[in-house]
């Protein structure tokens, strides 16, 4: 089956969620990938949204983080304060699944401003739940489309910390979680190099060249010694994803591409 680069990204991200793991899900791309995982390889993944639903099993993707569908399909719905206090800070989250506006070579995330904070060129939405998810989840996955504007040499603002300045930064900061273990894009998969914790390319999606990845990265991106090729999306994965998007579009009254 033919597929798009966006579909490849979502499928590759979904495969990273292990069955039975407890996942704190950001809205947008993370939510799409996490629900695809639940509908395919990981039916028992537990999805937690910051608005309060625990064990959400939505049949359509939520447009907002607090859609009624999330509450109706959840095992339980708790207050937002409890989500952050008991479930995240309490150490019960295996994977924090985040998006980003910008990311750097150590997996630090900017969702606050482009330009100077006090005189921003572009004011972005801000932190939301990400800083503490990035700090306290046992591991973090990041999903975003790759371009030299989003993969930058230096962030204008560190909203949510990844591996800080690299090396043992997280340990020195006293962060409980292991930090980002993968960045999944429409071109490739990056993982932190042992020791330096700098993200290097470990897998290219089918048909993608190293030159494409280099051109779409704002720092001198390196490649792991062994670079594999991501397995193409299976028919099962693509069908599940497209059905999910079609149900979502119908429920939200969107055109099919918008979901």
């Amino acid at each position, binding site marked *: 089956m033919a597929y798009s680069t966006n579909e490849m990204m979502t499928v590759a991200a979904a495969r990273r969620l292990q069955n039975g793991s407890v996942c704190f899900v950001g809205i947008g791309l993370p939510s799409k990938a996490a629900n695809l995982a639940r509908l395919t390889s990981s039916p028992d993944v537990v999805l937690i949204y910051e608005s309060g639903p625990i064990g959400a099993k939505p049949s359509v993707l939520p447009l907002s983080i607090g859609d009624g569908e999330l509450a109706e399909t959840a095992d339980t719905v708790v207050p937002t304060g409890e989500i952050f206090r008991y479930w995240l800070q309490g150490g019960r989250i295996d994977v924090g699944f985040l998006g980003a506006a910008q990311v750097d070579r150590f997996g630090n995330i900017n969702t606050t401003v482009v330009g100077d904070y006090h005189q921003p060129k572009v004011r972005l939405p801000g932190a939301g739940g990400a800083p503490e998810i990035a700090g306290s989840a046992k591991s973090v996955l990041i999903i975003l489309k790759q371009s030299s504007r989003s993969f930058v040499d230096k962030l204008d603002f560190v*909203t949510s910390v990844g591996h800080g300045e690299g090396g043992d930064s997280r340990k020195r900061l006293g962060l409980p979680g292991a930090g980002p273990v993968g960045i999944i894009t429409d071109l490739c998969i990056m993982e932190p190099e042992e020791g330096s914790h700098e993200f290097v390319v470990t897998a290219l999606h089918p048909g993608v060249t190293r030159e494409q990845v280099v051109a779409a990265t704002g720092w001198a991106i390196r490649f792991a010694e062994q670079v594999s090729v991501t397995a193409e999306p299976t028919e099962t994965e693509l069908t599940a994803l497209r059905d999910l998007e079609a149900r979502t579009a119908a429920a939200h009254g969107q055109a099919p591409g918008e979901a």
Partner: protein
Amino acid sequence: MAEILTLRDAVKRFVNDGDTVALEGFTHLIPTAAGHEIIRQGKKDLTLVRMTPDLIYDQLIGAGCARKLIFSWGGNPGVGSLHRLRDAVEKQWPQPLEIEEHSHADLANAYVAGASGLPFAVLRAYAGSDLPKVNPLIKTVTCPFTGEVLAAVPSVRPDITVIHAQKADRKGNVLLWGILGVQKEAALAAKRCIVTVEEIVDDLNAPMNSCVLPTWALTAVCHVPGGAHPSYAHGYNERDNRFYQAWDPIARDRETFSAWIDEYIHGTADFNEFQAKLATAQEAK
């Protein structure tokens, strides 16, 4: 005991110029009607607190009601930017807006601390983030037992909180369910609290352990069906995703925004009229 009032009277009596105001609701149960009424009555110099400013604060900021915004995520959910918030931050229109920026975990904890009568909240947060560099109110505290350095942030204690909920009884006890966000904490953290509700009933028939705010903890209850639109009230109406999308071009431009406020807020007497006007405009499309 909460008084059962019209929303107009409740806002007139309990929202003052210069107040710190929290209009809460995490995507669900956003008290939009109260936001409109605050604009209609021309309240000024407000410090607005909300985890997710959403359309409700985009409108209050663009209409010139706000002096300061305390928040943790300022976007139009599923759509994009809040253009009036951005115009105020980037270009000081219609007036400068001071911003005090936090994370969700911080503000959620700060509401819990406010409701608990504590001066600050303590949480494991912000290590490695630049937010403490731009918000001097984010400080640290050292645990006296383990020596761990933790984040300390001031509690949120609004002069007035407004929330929307599903039901009240005739005494003013309130029942809410679904995504609760920080509704209960925001209500109990405030000096005064107004609740708008979908319906007023003889008996709440609340199941044991459900989220009930007792009348004696509230100031006023107002009957405003649909008062959370374009947000929703679980069991009564659905989120109007189309309106969130339609808001983007309205708010993108100062002129279209001002014309919308003039027509739909200043040009209507109350939320009932607003809804009727909106319905007529949507039918005409």
